[in-house]
């Protein structure tokens, strides 16, 4: 695989999201009944990433949970905040007081990625060693955390939307750049960052390699029976991979002779051709190259 084409310092990737806030003494327990992960022991400042699934085990939303003490902040997928809040509200027991707030426009999610992200952070006065995956740290009004991926890591930043311009300018002053939409998308694909284009009801967590966001030991949650069944089988019938191609591949389903249906969820121009995220049938997962027909051959990479 060619080395990741990362900026020498850092690039700012806007990540469209939904924002919800839960308030109430039993908000954490309520979330624990609903999500695929155990939130029951989340402490102040902790971060837990989980999924909201339907009874068929399919993904309704991905939620980054942040315990802010009095409130629980939920960063979800773009475009589904209303459904997620509805889902949460409908299941609140009659004897629990939980308030759900809509903060979709109030907070912006940025990702910072590059070869010298730490230099950028240090310029802001943040000690990079303090930033961990399982915690959110405060920087002024912003929250900062870190997500590990197989090839690199990403700094997650939540900033009040009213301060976005000033905050972005601060990042630029410290060596970061903002990129165009295609570049952001190609970075997302190359790093294997999944978003609403993948984490939606078309897919099961195991198909997207999200087993780490599913806790089969926590007890029942919507979708748990299906997830347990998939887990016992050991492997999904299709799995997500990254494709490297000479030319851009259209998003959608492609019939590949001898292979079956290949579902492309995202595609972008890259340094040497294009990159895409796609779900391949199980029989094709271990291929190094995939002949898509018409002379188009893609390199297959696991995420």
């Amino acid at each position: 695989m060619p080395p990741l084409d990362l900026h020498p310092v850092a690039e700012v990737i806007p990540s469209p999201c939904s924002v919800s806030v839960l308030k109430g003494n039993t908000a954490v327990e309520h979330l624990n009944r609903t999500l695929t992960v155990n939130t029951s022991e989340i402490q102040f400042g902790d971060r837990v990433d989980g999924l909201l699934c339907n009874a068929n085990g399919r993904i309704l939303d991905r939620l980054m949970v942040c315990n802010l003490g009095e409130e629980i902040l939920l960063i979800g997928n773009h475009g589904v905040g209303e459904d997620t809040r509805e889902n949460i509200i409908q299941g609140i027991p009659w004897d629990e007081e939980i308030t759900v707030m809509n903060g979709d426009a109030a907070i912006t999610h940025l990702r910072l990625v590059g070869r010298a992200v730490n230099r950028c952070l240090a310029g802001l006065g943040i000690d990079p060693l303090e930033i961990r995956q399982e915690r959110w740290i405060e920087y002024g009004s912003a929250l900062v955390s870190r997500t590990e991926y197989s090839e690199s890591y990403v700094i997650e930043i939540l900033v009040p939307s009213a301060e976005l311009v000033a905050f972005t300018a601060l990042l630029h002053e410290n060596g970061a750049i903002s990129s165009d939409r295609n570049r952001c998308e190609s970075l997302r694909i190359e790093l294997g960052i999944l978003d609403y284009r993948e984490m939606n009801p078309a897919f099961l967590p195991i198909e997207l390699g999200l087993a780490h966001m599913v806790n089969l030991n926590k007890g029942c949650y919507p979708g748990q029976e299906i997830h347990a069944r998939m887990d016992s089988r050991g492997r999904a019938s299709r799995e997500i991979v990254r494709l490297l191609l000479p030319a851009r591949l259209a998003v959608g389903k492609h019939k590949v002779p001898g292979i079956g249906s290949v579902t492309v969820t995202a595609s972008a121009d890259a340094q040497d051709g294009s990159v895409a995220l796609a779900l391949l049938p199980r029989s094709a997962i271990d291929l190094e190259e995939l002949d898509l027909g018409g002379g188009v051959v893609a390199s297959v990479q696991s995420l």
Partner: protein
Amino acid sequence: MGILGGEGFSLPVVTSAEVVDVQIEFTEPARLAMKSTMGEDESTHVVIISAESGGCSGYMYDMQIVKDPNDDSFQRLEVGGLTVLVHNKNSAMLSGIRVDYKDTLMGGGFQIDNPNADRSCGCGQSFG
């Protein structure tokens, strides 16, 4: 001021739940088992049947014997000498349920058959 200190939050989100007139049936074994469980509390306590998030299928049943809350948010039903309350927000989900009781060592206890449920999990405690 913190991440939640800025503008743009709408407080709070309220969804309108469909409210229907609830009908509930208790089988004779269920009625007797509930009366036995309530004992002397029957005159001061009520049975609240509700649904909450969770379980494999989306919602879980809950039954509680509590002191009468005298709250207008509940619908009050007299079922075979029992006072059963269902919160308005759960009325559409729970109307028409049939509560049964099975006196067996394995898988016994109160069981709910819900005509509104598209699916229920193997243990019978969850529906969706």
